[in-house]
């Protein structure tokens, strides 16, 4: 990945609160269109890290460069590239959704006309168009969360940072939030997403940093992290036909570690089922075996976290 493709480079971040060394040399980078997740339990140092990256918190050591410009607590212009969604809902309860969005848009220097259009667009993204002119104090928790996110992405930042944006929302709102984050990264926004929900990290993030006690313990794509733990996907094919021949054929495919027949199909152990599956299905078909269903049982990041830290992600 070339350097000019990087939206964020954070290196060697340190932060102590009195005796507590909350962040101990955290480094990571995010490219255009990439969604990077910081996955870790409460108190791991996610918010402290994100606060240093946004220039909200003075750091004790390390460097942050966003869109080619150094970020510190005194930066002003450089912060324009960043959209920030705080962990706790930060909106004006006595202002409407539209007024909340417009105010922050103006703070980011957007002029009246483009701002008006953009506010409508964002209201649509966060699904609040029909409540745009209601005061936000009348909103449900999930709606407030969505407005909280809307404010962060309003000015179209190069890098959007979301600090546990789904905490305490109903499943429906959560799904809406996750969908809008997915949309953003498709549009080319770089996203830094912190969470302690494994499912969110798995669903949204191209790469994940597993953070605990102020350190990134491991980093990579989901598959990389999982393979680091030495666990493989279990693939179960329900199939009829020449099962023995099919097993012989799939064993030759790279990534397939083991294959065996069952009464009504084939079981496989695979590194990266998502990549190997097309070849597997091709080989099985070539062996004149027809597949009626595929089930992939993947080891997950929860297991990775347990493996790395000896702790469960959530307690």
């Amino acid at each position, binding site marked *: 990945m070339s350097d000019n493709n990087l939206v964020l480079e954070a290196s060697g971040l340190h932060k102590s609160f009195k005796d507590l060394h909350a962040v101990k040399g955290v480094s990571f980078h995010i490219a255009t269109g990439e969604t990077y997740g910081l996955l870790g339990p409460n108190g791991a140092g996610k918010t402290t890290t994100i606060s240093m990256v946004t220039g*909200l918190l003075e750091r004790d050591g390390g460097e942050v460069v966003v869109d080619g410009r150094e970020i510190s607590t*005194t930066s002003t212009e450089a912060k324009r590239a960043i959209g920030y969604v705080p962990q706790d809902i930060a909106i004006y309860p006595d*202002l409407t959704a539209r007024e909340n969005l417009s105010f922050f848009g103006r703070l980011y220097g957007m002029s009246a006309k483009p701002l008006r259009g953009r506010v409508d667009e964002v209201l649509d993204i966060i699904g609040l168009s029909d409540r745009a002119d209601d005061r936000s104090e009348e909103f449900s928790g999930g709606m407030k969360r969505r407005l909280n996110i809307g404010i962060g992405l309003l000015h179209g930042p190069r890098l959007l940072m979301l600090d546990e944006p789904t905490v305490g929302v109903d499943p429906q709102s959560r799904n809406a939030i996750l969908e809008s984050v997915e949309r953003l990264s498709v549009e080319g926004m770089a996203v830094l997403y912190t969470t302690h929900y494994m499912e969110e990290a798995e669903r949204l993030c191209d790469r994940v940093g597993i953070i605990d006690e102020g350190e990134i313990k491991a980093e990579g794509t989901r598959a990389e992290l999982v393979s680091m733990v030495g666990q493989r996907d279990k693939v179960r094919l329900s199939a009829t036909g020449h099962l023995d021949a099919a097993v012989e054929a799939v064993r030759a495919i790279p990534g397939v570690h083991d294959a065996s027949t069952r009464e009504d199909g084939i079981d496989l152990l695979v590194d990266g089922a998502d990549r190997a599956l097309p070849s597997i299905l091709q080989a099985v078909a070539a062996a004149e075996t027809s597949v009626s269903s595929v089930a992939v049982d993947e080891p997950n990041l929860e297991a990775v976290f347990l493996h790395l830290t000896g702790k469960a992600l959530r307690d």
Partner: protein
Amino acid sequence: MAAVQIALKDLKQRVRDRSAFLWGIVAPLGLAAIFSMLFGPIADFDVSFAVADLDGGTVASAFVDQLEDLEADGTITLEVADDAASAEDLVEDGSVDAAFVIPVGFTDAVSAGATVEVGVIGNVDQAIGTQVARSVAAGFAGEINTVGAAACTVLTARDESCLGSPSLGSLAATALAEPAFTESPVTLAGSPAASKELSSETFYSAAMAILFLFLTVQFGVLGLLEERQNGTMLRLLAAPISARSIVAGKALTSFVLGLVSMTVLVVGTTLLLGAEWGNSLGVAVMVLAGVIAAMGIMFVVAAFARTPEQASNLQSIIAFVLAMLGGSFFPIAQVGGLVAQLSLLTPHAWFLRGLGDLAAGGGVGAVFPAALYVALFGIVTGGLAQLRIGRVLQA
């Protein structure tokens, strides 16, 4: 520009929740109206005098009569002493604020056209009472001179040398003893406190305005703590604006709220209560200085308080203490001693004093010393608070 955006947003919120309107306009206007109705002439506050008439002549009696009239009005309380020593005792033991001693031969001296003086014995701790006594005595002496001069003017046509003539003096003495002349030679108008010349309507309008100004400004600067409490401070800090412009935005909100509420109060009390504020430019200068002083204190509170609620309580306490010390409720200087001196440290006392100077007919120049003190009070306190305000501008 960011500061203006922040101030516009804040003002929108303040208009919406109406609190600034209630505290900045409704409350002071209502209280000013109630106080001016309740207490009418501010001189109702109790000044007590003793008088010892050692002369017993007609002019001396005229003076005592006038004092008794004032007592009948309820303007003062009066005790009659037999001699100078017992008058002095009354002053010493605090029964009265001051005593008049009319010397032996007073009436004769007036008749002879000589310069006369009513002696005043004042209690050092009753500065205002003594001051009032002196002005009563001086007013009476002035009245004698005026009558003498008037008589002189009439007679000048016929007699070249009228001044100092014994006949003139006796004419004056006779004239003074006439009811037409002695109707009210001595008046106690307005508050004897700092607002020497303010009518009660004007005094209470000004006093309530400056008191509530200190509460109104909190709806700007306190926003710093409110933004912190509801998390939006993080967003402001993450935005591409300087931390200074956040503070400036809040200051601007306070400034606008203070200025608007004061303007409405000046106009409102003039129209509704008949207050007479005097020279408008002078009032504007005084109001501006008052707003700066109130903001200074508010910044100090914001720099030290932990929560908006705490800050609001603290600001209210300070506002009332300063107003009380500064004579917004009653003429505190009357208490005398340390309190009277502390009173002079408050912007309130100087605010009322400046307005008194305007009411006395002074132009804008007359308020500059008072306005300067009031503004400096705000600049110094507010400036010192900036050293610590950074504390609320952190994640």
